[in-house]
């Protein structure tokens, strides 16, 4: 066990030394891999932030219930109280027909024209805001159906179409994210594979001699696997830094934009656990690329023998 561990440590140190001896080549390979890993991570961060942003905005989902013209103000007030008493409702605002007409008169500039109307044609309106936990599509739809069933209510309008569109776009982005991740993972494997292939070419004699003296394929492969692993770990860490730096540079601009829409939304960067995930994913892909390249080469040597 001690010797086995010593062999692995030796391979790890030897691989680290090889990478350190060619700093420029190592940096370029790591940079290419890091960019490939940073792209899906950026997209994932974008999707998460957009999901979070639309989640915050779901507090602005409202239902507008238009009462029938014959419903009086006292009854409207009673309906507003009944609606407030329902579970899942955060706030109910009653806009009476008189208030509505006053506001309309003020904002429309049709004051004189409105004077010729024999009576106020506007109905009383209830503006219903659900609690955030009941702002999902199904809950809001349930509330809409319940209100629409009241005989005093003429029409209930749901102001959430734009959120539904964003949710649909996010679903598409999720699918695109997975496709891009798969493609770029393949690119990372190809980059490591090609780098390791070049290293194998450079160390061809060493490999052949090692096999001549009884080295197994696993032994020959080992330093290359560590090389791939190290490339992946470094690329994962660098990818995390790239995404974190990008988020940091965008944060204040996005905050200002959110505030303009009355939201307290703050752009969230990748967390420390994502550093772990990126490093692990990079290491796994690096290892896989190295394994494919080294195994392919060894298979060719074995075939020639």
């Amino acid at each position, binding site marked *: 066990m*001690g*010797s*086995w561990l*010593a*062999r692995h440590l*030796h391979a790890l140190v030897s691989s680290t030394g090889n990478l350190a001896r060619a700093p420029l080549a190592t940096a370029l390979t790591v940079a290419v891999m890091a960019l490939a890993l940073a792209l899906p991570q950026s997209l994932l961060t974008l999707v998460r932030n957009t999901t979070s942003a639309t989640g915050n905005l779901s507090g602005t989902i409202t239902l507008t219930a238009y009462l029938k013209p014959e419903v009086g103000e006292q009854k409207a007030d009673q309906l507003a109280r009944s609606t407030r008493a329902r579970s899942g409702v955060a706030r109910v605002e009653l806009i009476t027909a008189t208030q509505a007409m006053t506001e309309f008169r003020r904002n429309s500039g049709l004051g004189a024209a409105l004077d010729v109307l024999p009576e106020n044609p506007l109905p009383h309106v209830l503006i219903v805001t659900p609690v955030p936990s009941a702002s999902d599509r199904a809950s809001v739809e349930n509330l809409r159906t319940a209100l629409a069933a009241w005989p005093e209510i003429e029409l209930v309008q749901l102001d959430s179409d734009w959120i539904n569109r964003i949710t649909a776009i996010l679903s598409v982005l999720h699918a695109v994210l997975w496709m891009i991740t798969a493609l770029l993972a393949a690119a990372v494997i190809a980059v490591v594979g090609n780098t390791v292939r070049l290293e194998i070419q450079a160390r061809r*004699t*060493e490999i*052949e*001699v*090692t*096999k*001549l*003296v*009884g*080295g*197994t*394929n696993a*032994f020959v492969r080992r330093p290359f696997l560590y090389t791939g692993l190290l490339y992946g770990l470094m690329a994962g860490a660098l990818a995390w830094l790239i995404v974190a730096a990008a988020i940091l540079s965008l944060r204040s601009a996005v905050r200002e934009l959110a505030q303009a829409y009355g939201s307290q939304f703050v752009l969230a960067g990748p967390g420390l656990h994502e550093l772990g995930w990126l490093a692990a994913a990079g290491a796994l892909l690096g290892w896989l690329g190295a394994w494919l390249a080294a195994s392919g080469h060894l298979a060719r040597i*074995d075939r020639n*023998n």
Partner: protein
Amino acid sequence: MISFDRVVKRYPNGREALAGVTLEIAAGEMVVLTGRSGAGKSTLLKLIALLERPTRGRAIVNGVNLSDLPAKRIPAFRRGVGMVFQDHKLLPNNDVFDNVALPLVVTDTSLREIDKRVRAALDQVGLLGKERQLPEELSVGEQQRVGIARAIVGRPPLLIADEPTGNLDPELAVEMMTLFRRLNSVGVTVLLATHDLHLVRESGLREVVLEGGTVHDHTVGALPTIKGVR
């Protein structure tokens, strides 16, 4: 130790390098393989080291049938055959110690044991004290001795050498033969391939001549006495 029975080796291009070789080499023997260039010497050694597989015939080395040995068992088989090459095949970036240690490093031998055995092998070839030198800092004869130390460090029962004196001047060639005979005297079976007929005739060793892919086996006289050997 080595038992070949009508062994044929034909390459994919159709060239027949060995055309039914029958050969017996007992454990503890020292045999010289001669023949013109292209006679099949290197092919025979490659078969013994399992760098090639026989096309036909029965080839047994160290008790292993070479035709049906699974690929995954080849590395273990090769550890039982020490190989010395004309071009030494030393790793230029590794020092003498690391070059000699390689056959032990590929196994799970402890670092302490590696240190002990590498020094013992270097002592046998007279290179103790040069552990930290790079191959390029050594003479051709010393490089060849490093190659021999690497071949014997794993204590294989069989040592094969392909033109081990090919790049050496006559004096060094005799020195190298003395070294092989010393190794043979401690029980290692040695098979040398060479085209240096003068050296063979002087050595009085059993000579196996390969000609047109077949063997003409004959022994040249009695072994001369070499100081400290036989």
